[in-house]
Structures are given as structure tokens and as C-alpha cells.
């Protein structure tokens, strides 16, 4: 099986869907001629033509609005936000229109909004955000965040095929750093709403997603070697709807759980997950639910400051030790 990067897996997924279904088309800034800011859609213009790979003006609200209209007409648009940070410009369209169109007017809106997500790349505050908290409380949307190349492919295909709007957060740090063997000639589909146990363990659980799955796995290895701890790592993969059953299962298994996410602390999804754990599994907790998150500051540009603000493997290790000792 050939080794494929996370980015290449995403590209494969998009390409396969576009070949499979003529109604799938792409729109976004620089997706066509330039092949995408990160080259995700390189070669697509040549293969699928200008009516299916559309270079748009710098106007996220308009892009999303146009996609919504196209979706109502039976197309399956895949919108790219050049950096997911810019999805904020389309917030009104997404929350006030796209998310509720089916509910309000019976108008299906099968579209995907995808974009590079997260930091660790010295991108500064406009190019490193994790915006899930802004959308997770909006019924009508789905949100996915793959951590592996396989899920990058599986989830983009699932998102395209989903009859409802899906926000797809691809982590820019993982684009070229993750390489995996992916089967050829086999349909790779990851179900939306299902988490994955990335590493089994018995002493404590880390609930996480996207790039931090990898740091959590590093931390788990270190904790096993140095502390003899058996750490379970749960990769949520989908943030909305969250896999409650998987979260409950891991909490009840290890009785000690921590949430690790790259988003800021206040209002980040760790609070939501903690509340759910509290509701479903309070009697199984042998320690309070803890979290490791980014600090509540705008993301700095200076490398040393970015490193200090974002969660690192040693932060995860430290919190896991506290949790294990409680």
C-alpha cells in the first residue's frame, strides 16, 4: 500500500468524490488556477474544468451564500476557506441561513465548508484558529476534524455525501507531517459521529482530536515508559454530533479523564465534554475531569510565545500525572 500524506489523502478524497458525482464542485479563493494555498486542489482545474473548480473573490459570506444557493438547486458544493479563521466572515450565512434552511423551509443544504485549521506553524492569530466553539452550539451543522490521513480521506468523502452542511477542519500542521499507508482501489469512508480509540489504556483517558491526538499519543508513550501508566487516547473525529457513547465508555473504563484541545480554554469544548461526563458518568469518576488547552490569549506570532500558549506534549504529560495521582 502506498504511503500517503494527510494532505494527499484529503486530495484523493475530493478527487474521488468529484469523479463519482458530477454535482460536486469546488469554490474558494485560489482553489483553481493556483491549486489552493496549500495545494490541496492542485490539478483539479485541469481535470474537472472551470465550471467545477471556481476561483472566487475574497468574500467568504458571498462564497458560502452562493454555495447555499447551489446546494438548494441540487449541487454539492465544497467551499474552501483559505484559512479556517476566515469562516468568521461567513458566520451569519452559516448560522442564520445554512444551518437552519432545512428546518425553516425544508430546503436541503448539502454543502461542505473546509479549511486549514489550528496552529503550531508560526501563523499568528489570523491563520491559526480553532473555531469549533463558535459553531458547535448551532443545531443543523455538523463538524468534523480528522487526525489521521485515513480519516482525512474518509471524512471528506462522508462530508460530501452528507445531506446536510458539514464543517471540515483539516489541520495545517498535519498536512505534510502525517504519512500513512492507505489502501488503493478501496472505498475509504469514515462515519460522521463516531469516535476512534487511538490507543487503548486502563489508567486514564485522554479525549482529544486533530493534531493533539498525536501529541497525546506521544505523551501516552512517555507515561508508559516513565510512569508505567496505561493511557487510553480517544480521537473524537467528529465534534458535532459528539460520540457520547464512546466518551462514556472510556470514562467508565478508566475512571479518570482529561480533555486536550488546541482551542482556548474559556468556552472551549472541554467544558461541554466535562458537562456530558458529569451527566452520564459522575459515579464512575475517581478524579475530577481535567483539561489541557491553549491559554486565553490571541495566538502570538513569536515562536517562543506560540509554544508557550499552545498545548505541548509536556503539558499533557504533566496533567496526566496529576490526574493519575489524585
Amino acid at each position, binding site marked *: 500500500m502506498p504511503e500517503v500524506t494527510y494532505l494527499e489523502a484529503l486530495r484523493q478524497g475530493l478527487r474521488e468524490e468529484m469523479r463519482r458525482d458530477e454535482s460536486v464542485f469546488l469554490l474558494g479563493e485560489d482553489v483553481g488556477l493556483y491549486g489552493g494555498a496549500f495545494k490541496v486542489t492542485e490539478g483539479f482545474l485541469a481535470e474537472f474544468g472551470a465550471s467545477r473548480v471556481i476561483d472566487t473573490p475574497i468574500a467568504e459570506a458571498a462564497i458560502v451564500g452562493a454555495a447555499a444557493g447551489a446546494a438548494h438547486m441540487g449541487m454539492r458544493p465544497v467551499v474552501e476557506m483559505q484559512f479556517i479563521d476566515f469562516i468568521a466572515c461567513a458566520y451569519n450565512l452559516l448560522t442564520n441561513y445554512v444551518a437552519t434552511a432545512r428546518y425553516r423551509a425544508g430546503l436541503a443544504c448539502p454543502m461542505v465548508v473546509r479549511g486549514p485549521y489550528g496552529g503550531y506553524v508560526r501563523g499568528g492569530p489570523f491563520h491559526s484558529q480553532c473555531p469549533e466553539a463558535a459553531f458547535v452550539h448551532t443545531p443543523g451543522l455538523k463538524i468534523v476534524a480528522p487526525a489521521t490521513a485515513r480519516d482525512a480521506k474518509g471524512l471528506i468523502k462522508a462530508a460530501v455525501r452528507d445531506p446536510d452542511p458539514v464543517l471540515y477542519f483539516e489541520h495545517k500542521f498535519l498536512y505534510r507531517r502525517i504519512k500513512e499507508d492507505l489502501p488503493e482501489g478501496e472505498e475509504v469512508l469514515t462515519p460522521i459521529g463516531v469516535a476512534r480509540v487511538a490507543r487503548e489504556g486502563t489508567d486514564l483517558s485522554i479525549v482529544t482530536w486533530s493534531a493533539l491526538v498525536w501529541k497525546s499519543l506521544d505523551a501516552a508513550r512517555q507515561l508508559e515508559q516513565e510512569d508505567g501508566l496505561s493511557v487510553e487516547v480517544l480521537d473524537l473525529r467528529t465534534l458535532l454530533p459528539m460520540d457520547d457513547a464512546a466518551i462514556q465508555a472510556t470514562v467508565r473504563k478508566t475512571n479518570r479523564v482529561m480533555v486536550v484541545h488546541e482551542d482556548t480554554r474559556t468556552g472551549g469544548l472541554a467544558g461541554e465534554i466535562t458537562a456530558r461526563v458529569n451527566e452520564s458518568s459522575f*459515579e464512575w*469518576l475517581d*478524579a475530577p475531569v481535567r483539561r489541557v488547552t491553549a491559554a486565553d490569549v490571541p495566538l502570538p506570532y513569536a515562536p517562543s510565545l506560540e509554544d508557550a500558549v499552545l498545548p505541548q506534549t509536556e503539558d499533557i504529560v504533566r496533567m496526566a500525572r496529576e490526574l493519575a495521582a489524585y
Partner: protein
Amino acid sequence: MARLDVIMPQMGESIAEGTLSRWMKKVGEPVKRDEPIFEISTDKVDAEIPAPSAGVLLEIKVQEGQTVPVLTVVAVIETEAGASSAVPVAAPAPAPAAPPRPAPVAAPAPVVVAAALPPPPAAGPRAETAEERLRSRSTPLVRRLAAENHVDFTVIPGSGVDGRVTKKDLLGYIEAGGAAALPQAAAAPRAPVSAAASAQTAAAPTRAPTSLAGPLVSTASGIEETPWAAVPWPGDRIEPMSKIRMLTAQHMVLSRRTSAHVTSFYEVDMTRVARLREAHKRAYEERGAKLTYLGFITKAVADCLRRHPILNAAVQGATVIYRQPINIGIAVALEWGLIVPVVRSADELSLFGVARSMRDLADRARAKRLKPDEVQQGTFTITNPGGFGSYVGAPIINQPQVAILGVGAVEKRPKVLTLDDGTDVIAPRLLMMLGLSYDHRVVDGADADRFMADLKRLLEEFPEGAL
């Protein structure tokens, strides 16, 4: 006649207060329903406010020029009987916070706070309240497991932060038969003597007794040192205690301190049992079991425990736990120490089953091949000092049980028998002394004696059909 409050209305979603700019009616004046009675001035709009009902303006509570929060009562109208509006009287409740004031912060759940606050003071002279103990020493999981297993977790030394009892501590405690916790939490093992078989018990640091002076000091060995502690003299041979020796020592002392030991002695005529044994022992050997006096006794004890459940129990705090299974431990003396393998559900086995099980356990005990769960969860223990010739024994209870039977040697001794015609004769009989040590916290003399009387009768009239 009814009193109706007139309130400062909310003129818009975001408006929180209003200024009463002008009264258009005076106190005592009649008002008609919907007739304007006062004017207000707000951020957004000035307005005339109508009377909610017909009546008489009874009281003015807010003066012209005063600014009050929305829903404040500004006046009272006395309505005419039967002319009251359908609108219920506004409850004269205090106005909600006008410019949104921060709501009082609810105290976070105790467990979460505990993590953020400095650690609670270590066990000081002041006794903790139950609530404090709970908060600082347990988690929801531990409390639930403790409740399910009827364990008082507050007595378990905790290995978590600040002495918190963790799931591991609790489960370890339950598995070890709930043996009373030893003073040093981290260092001392919790397993009772019977668990010493498997070499995997927690290591107890073997420290030679050091202090000569000072009051009773509990060391890691659990053996208290006293001012008259033994000191080696020249020529003495010093040997550190083996693990099994240490555990036995700890257990014996602890058992004496835990139970109110009383021993009752009974003499049993084993002549009939001996005869039955002679008759059947070869058949038993051929089937792979050794028929011994102890086998008969174990079987008889199992039957009697069914009839006298208080002897098959355990004490936990202020509760008596009546054990469902009858698991009889048989003490085996090995070169390296004492071990108590357990015949599980002995009452469900036939005499043959008991005999075979006992032989198998004893063999494997000597070969050090017992499994951990074969020395756990005993509910009653039998020990056999008679095997070494002892006349009778007054054994120490194997915690957390409430009784132990010491079996003396079976010997020919003269006994007075009454013949059918009433004549008394002295005849040689095979006699055996039994010593039942029991925990007088829950077993009274009468309970013990009833059990022993039953046991004696069963042994002296052992049914041949049971073989």
C-alpha cells in the same frame, strides 16, 4: 375592593429602567381603565402609561423625577369591587437587577474546589466531620463502590493526594477481605495471613526495631515497640522476618486487638467417626481422596454453619455481614509458615468432595502452587494443633471472620458411659477436644454453645449415609 399595583413598564427589550416624569392624577382621584395616569421617560421613548384598571389612585410610591428599575411598583390603585381586570395583581417582588449585575457565583462542586485549594490540614487533633472526611478522602466512584460493597471507606488509608482513597485502594481492600487497615498506609500491606501464599503481596519494608525509648510506636511492621523492646545480646542470632512471618505477626496482633476473643471448649466422642473412617478409607483412597478426621469435622462444621449463620459472618463497623457462601479455611503448617487454603462452598460438597478438596489444597500448598483466590474469601477457619499432639487449642480468629475452631488430638481416654439399664461404666473411647474461639462482639456464648452442641452431636452421630 382590592389593591392593584401599578408598575413601571418595560418599553423595550433592552430597557432596564425608566424615569417617572409626571403624574397626571393625584392621590384620591378616581381613574378609569386605560386612562393615562403617569408619564415616563426612557432611553428610547417617552410615553403616557394607562391605568390597568378602574378605581381610585390610593398611593403614589415613586415621585416625579425619580428613576426606577423596570417593574418597580410606582403606585397602588384601589379597584372597585367586581371591576378588577383579568390581569392578576403583580407580585410585589423586588425588581430584577436593572443594569445586569453579575449573578452570585454558585459554589463549585466540592470535589473540584478541593483540587484548587491548598490541601486540607493533615489529620489534626480536631475530629473531622463526616462531610469533611467525605470531601477530602473520596470520589464519586469510591463512594459508589464502597456503598455497593458495604465497605466503610473512611477507615481505608488512601494512596491518593492528601490521603484520598482511590479506586485501587478500595478494591485492594475488598479483595484482601477487608482486613483492618494498618497504621502506615503506604508501607504496610493489607492482606491478611491467608494471602501470604502468593509471593506477590505488597512488600513490607523490613526494618529492624530501632527505638528503645519512647511510648508505643507503630512501625511499618505493625508490631508495636515498647520501652521494654527486645535488644540483641552478644551471641544472639539475628534474623530478619520473612514476608510470611511479618504478615502472620501483624495479623495475630491485629486480630487480638480487633475481636473480643472468647474460647469455648467441648469434648467430642470420635469413636463412631473412627469406625466409619476405618470402614471407608480404602474406598476413598481408591477414588483419590484421603479420609481424615479433619475431613469429617470440616463437613460437619459446614452443615452446622448453615444452621448457625452468626458464626459464618463478619463485622464491618456497626454492621454484621452474614456471608452467603460457606468457605472453610483449613490452616496448614508449612516449613516456612502458616497458610490457610479455603474449601469453597463446603456445605455444597459431599464428604468425599470435602476430603478430596482438602487433600488437593494441602498438596498444592506444600508445593507452593496455590492460586491467589484459593486463599481468599474464607468465612470460617479450622486449625489442627492436635496434629502435633496438642490436647486442645484456643486459636486466634482469622480476620475478618468471627470464629475459628481449634481441633485437639484424637486419643483414647477413659470416659464414663451410661448403659441402657442405667449402669455407669468406664470405657476407653476415642476422645477429642475442640476449642472454638469466637468474637464476642457479635457471637454470644449461647450462639457459640448452640453451634458447638450441634457440631458435637453431628460428629458423635455421624450418618453413615453421608460417606
